[in-house]
């Protein structure tokens, strides 16, 4: 295995493009090292992104949007008060990933690129309308987060392409987001179903919404019908009922020992109702 400590994303992309064998980019390493240990992946070229300037930064840009470096670990997101105030749902999702030890290393971008349909860090990004800044052999592009996952363990990134940062939009007035998952334990488990909702209110009325579901389909999904079910409402019982129905209709989960298809389909709807109420309370400036 050749280890490369890339000094820029362009260099990282060029190494990956020229590589002939198995290539892996490494940020926190909490997935890559496990795959190496298990023999699932034996990289010929391992490209460490942590030596690139800015990868450890959480930056609020002039327009109020946020740029999160690819090596920013979960624990650092949770310790950033201004980011937590703007995007609590994004942060609470990432903070559910792994143990304290894993939180010291694991990153949002790594969680995204690992391609798990159950990634707790990703639904919040999708609901937030975040974009990935991608650097590749043919230049840079920005892609909505929901277009990155292709299926379990795979992404739509082309050979030589690497994510250089995640951008969260400006929060703006009257906004709130939240994420919850179901697990059979209280800690240290992988989502059986998950839901993130980001919405905006004017008075009591929901004017914008984005709903993302996790662990109930081959990829994390943005569910437009679910957003439409609550836009224009005051999140009354009828709207919540319609939201849950739309979310369950969009789910196409597998059955396994951790949850049957029927269970996951039902529970993701229940989660959507709860998450919507938390996001709504946050949007109205109430504590939730």
């Amino acid at each position: 295995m050749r280890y490369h400590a890339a000094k820029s994303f362009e260099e990282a992309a060029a190494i990956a493009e020229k590589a002939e064998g198995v290539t892996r980019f490494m940020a926190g390493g909490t997935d890559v090292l496990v795959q190496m240990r298990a023999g699932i992946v034996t990289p010929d070229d391992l490209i460490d992104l942590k030596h690139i300037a800015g990868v450890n930064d959480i930056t609020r840009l002039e327009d109020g949007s946020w740029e999160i470096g690819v090596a920013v670990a979960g624990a650092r997101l949770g310790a950033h008060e201004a980011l937590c105030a703007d995007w609590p749902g994004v942060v609470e999702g990432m903070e559910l990933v792994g143990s304290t030890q894993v939180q010291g290393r694991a990153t949002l971008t790594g969680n995204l690129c690992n391609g798990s349909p159950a990634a707790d860090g990703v639904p919040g990004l999708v609901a937030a309308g975040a974009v990935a800044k991608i650097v590749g052999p043919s230049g840079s592009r920005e892609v909505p987060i929901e277009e990155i996952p292709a299926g379990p363990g795979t992404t739509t990134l082309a050979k030589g392409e690497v994510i250089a940062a995640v951008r969260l939009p400006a929060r703006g007035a009257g906004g709130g987001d939240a994420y919850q998952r179901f697990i059979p334990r209280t800690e240290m488990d992988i989502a059986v179903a998950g839901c993130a909702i980001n919405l905006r209110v004017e008075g009591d009325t929901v004017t914008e919404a984005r709903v993302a579901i996790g662990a109930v389909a081959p990829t994390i999904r943005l569910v437009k019908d679910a957003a439409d079910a609550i836009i224009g409402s005051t999140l009354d019982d009828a709207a919540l009922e319609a939201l849950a129905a739309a979310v369950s209709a969009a789910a196409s989960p597998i059955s396994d020992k951790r949850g049957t298809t029927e269970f996951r389909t039902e529970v993701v709807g229940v989660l959507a109702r709860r998450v919507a109420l938390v996001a709504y309370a946050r949007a109205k400036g109430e504590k939730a």
Partner: protein
Amino acid sequence: MSKIHVSTTVNGDSVEFLADPRETLLDCLRDHLGLTGTKEGCGTGDCGACSVTLDGTLVCSCLVLGIEAEGREIGTVEGMAEGHELHPLQRKFIEHAALQCGFCTPGFLVAAKALLDKNPDPTETEVRYWLAGNLCRCTGYDKIVRAVMDAAAEMRQEAV
């Protein structure tokens, strides 16, 4: 395969070693530096037996490459006692019999110290969540949690 020269700091001492790029920090601590206090449990970041601090942040050393230690500061269980004077956490683990086989203990000690460095007065719930990534198959955790709470109280000079 050529090895890479790594200069790093472990428990305040400057050290050097030659690492294969595939070796984990855990392998390097144990096999190149002879610091066998840090244990390998699962090797996949699930059990916490290999807990160390990397520039003050608690991590699983099995999920860090040895070559990533270049220029960093590592803290291991060997750095907790001052000579023959045990750290209060170590003393309280013995007093409360918070171990049987002892394999998980170095990881629990390093993780608990990282918690108390950050939060000297944690609630029992905070201790349990912080240590959720450290597995123990002997004690049932209760004695470990009590030992950590008692050590924290002593360190705050509020003997219970």
